[in-house]
């Protein structure tokens, strides 16, 4: 049986299913004989729940997953609420068993939270549901899922990977992961990729279509799950797995090596990340720095904006992870498409062409300057650069610089430690920025090309819209010409130009990007080594030749075909 899901983490996993349940057994409703004993039983379960949760929080903290650790610590505080304890004890006195008492009381707390109609409070209801499930499991003697003890060759099948489950997980015993929920950017996906475990997510009915002990093949590169494979399937995938392992092994040869072209010309290969914890993963994957640290993680899923100190600590962490290597941090890039209630962003019909990113920040000086100050202070602890998203005019850049200069005055007055020469650059991701790139290059210290949005705006096509998806392509001559122009303008003004969109790691585009003069390639952490490999394939003369011929073609499809052919021939050699 073959099932499709979302390819979340590449590779082939072959193994035996272990279904991991995060819900308790059905509760037996009975009246315990000895109420005092029952209350003791509750208290013991409460203590073991808190001790286990404490341990998990500590392990998550060590792994730099501070946010997950905080969530778990909050659980301890909630379950120790004296109101909750006294209500549960009352229920036991009235003749309930501990499980039923806990269920009743915590369900009423969940209802109480839901009834407020307040979005943030209603989100806490999910926490209480998680606590309820785990506490009842403790009472039922079901051990907290300990994935570090499973036999080798286990394929985990679960609803969703929760923070508590992921503690102690290593890639050694777990051959694959299949979940019912989650997309490419979900916690489950990010974790699977970080651990190098093949994963297929969003397989809606997986919990009912598969059983403990089933043999299964997980194709995380294609997003396929094959249950009870035939001999033919097994042979085919064993071969695929071997090829994949061989490729990974060959790539390991590039670890610790400089990133150079076939001529020995150096380029920077750095990573795109979304949090300080990702920074550690990127470093382990041999990234030579960070080409894009998205800062939205600091602003989302909370009731109010982060203050200077909290931001400073987060940026400092990433800066220190990389020492003297560059860390480019992008200022807040958020809009009406994301849920951030305290920013009071109006609902827009067209958020991608609306009040977002730098437009919002230039209208909210307090918020923006808090971020700028935190960034300037963090730059005293490493090699930090500030990058502004969604620029469309020279005036915007000049205003940013004015606000930045005010921050420098403030920080000097406050006697705080910071680097006054922190480089300031922009993302070039709008057609306007591409067209006036010559003027913009005179105003900033570097460019980073955001091909994801640049492609969408240039081709006037939404990548998520299946009817026009075929138009959205970085191989389109319009997009390639823009990239070429942006690179030339940067070099004419003597500033470096990098790229942080997906195009930077595309093997077929690398010779073209080299020809255009791209200095820095910022890619997803797991693509660092493969990008280094692809870079090493081309010398300047070939790259120029290939770029010229590619641009002579009229269509994205034609250009892609040509480039793919070139890459195939080169790899064969």
């Amino acid at each position, binding site marked *: 049986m073959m099932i499709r899901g979302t390819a979340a983490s590449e590779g082939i996993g072959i193994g035996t299913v272990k279904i991991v349940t995060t819900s308790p057994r059905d509760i037996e409703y009975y009246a315990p004989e000895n109420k005092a004993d029952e209350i003791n039983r509750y208290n013991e379960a409460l203590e073991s729940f808190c001790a286990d949760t404490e341990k998990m929080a500590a392990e998550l903290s060590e792994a730099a997953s501070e946010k997950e650790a*905080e969530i778990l610590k909050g659980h301890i505080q909630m379950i120790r609420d*004296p*109101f909750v304890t006294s209500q549960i004890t009352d229920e036991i006195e009235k003749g309930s068993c501990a499980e039923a008492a806990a269920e009743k009381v915590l369900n009423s707390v969940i209802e109480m939270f839901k009834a407020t109609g307040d979005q943030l409070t209603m989100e806490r209801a999910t926490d209480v549901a998680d606590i309820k499930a785990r506490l009842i499991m403790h009472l039922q003697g079901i051990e907290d899922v300990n994935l570090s003890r499973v036999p080798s060759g286990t394929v985990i099948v679960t609803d969703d990977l929760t923070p508590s489950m992921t503690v102690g997980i290593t890639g050694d015993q777990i051959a694959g992961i299949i979940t019912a929920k989650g997309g490419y950017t979900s916690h489950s996906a990010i974790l699977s990729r970080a651990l190098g475990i093949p994963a297929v997510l969003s397989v809606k009915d997986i919990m009912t279509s598969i059983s403990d002990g089933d043999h299964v093949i997980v194709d995380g590169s294609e997003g396929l799950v094959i249950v009870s494979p035939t001999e033919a399937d097994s042979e085919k995938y064993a071969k695929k797995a071997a090829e994949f392992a061989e490729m990974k092994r060959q790539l390991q040869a590039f670890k610790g090596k400089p990133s150079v072209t076939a001529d020995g010309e150096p380029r920077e290969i750095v990573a795109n990340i979304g949090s300080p914890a990702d920074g550690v993963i990127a470093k382990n994957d041999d990234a030579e720095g960070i080409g894009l640290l998205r800062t939205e993680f600091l602003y989302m899923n909370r009731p109010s904006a982060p203050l200077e100190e909290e931001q400073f600590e987060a940026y400092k962490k990433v800066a220190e992870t990389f020492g003297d290597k560059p860390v480019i941090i992008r200022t807040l890039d958020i809009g009406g498409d994301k849920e951030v209630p305290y920013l009071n962003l109006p609902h827009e019909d067209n958020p991608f062409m609306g009040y977002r990113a730098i437009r919002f920040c230039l209208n909210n000086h307090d918020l923006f300057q808090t971020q700028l100050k935190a960034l300037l202070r963090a730059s005293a602890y490493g090699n930090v650069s500030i990058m502004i998203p969604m620029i469309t005019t020279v005036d915007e850049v000049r205003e940013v610089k004015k606000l930045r200069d005010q921050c420098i005055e403030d920080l000097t007055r406050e006697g705080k430690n910071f680097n006054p020469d922190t480089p300031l650059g922009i993302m070039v991701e709008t057609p306007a920025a591409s067209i006036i790139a010559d003027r913009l290059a005179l105003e900033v210290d570097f460019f980073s090309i955001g091909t994801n949005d640049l492609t969408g705006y240039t081709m006037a096509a939404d990548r998520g819209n299946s009817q026009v998806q075929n138009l959205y392509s970085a191989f389109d001559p319009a997009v390639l010409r823009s990239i070429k122009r942006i690179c030339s303008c940067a070099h004419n003004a003597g500033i470096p130009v990098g790229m942080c969109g997906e195009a930077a790691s595309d093997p077929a585009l690398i010779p073209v990007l080299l020809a255009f003069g791209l200095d820095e390639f910022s890619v997803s952490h797991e693509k660092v080594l493969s990008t280094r490999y692809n870079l090493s394939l081309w010398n300047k003369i070939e790259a120029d030749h290939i770029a010229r011929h590619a641009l002579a073609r009229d269509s994205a499809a034609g250009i892609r075909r040509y480039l793919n052919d070139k890459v195939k021939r080169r790899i064969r050699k």
Partner: protein
Amino acid sequence: MVNQQLKVSNSQGFHMRPATMFVSEMAKFQSSVTIKFNGLNVNGKSLMNLIAACIKFGSEIEIVCEGDDEQAALDKAVELIQSGLGEE
């Protein structure tokens, strides 16, 4: 019984982290702590009830303490709220 009225001045109000800090400090006192808000009487020692009360920035509240150490409890509660409940 002692009481005092004041305004909540930290941006998050009595949300998760500040509420947790408040209840762990108030747990040290023997007196009962009640927060009157919006016509409700909220148990100031219960994290769950504080969160459910949705006391936000700018809310006008009244703290009522009753017990042997009521004055100390009230002073502490007022001090915590006026200093922003742990927010910088």
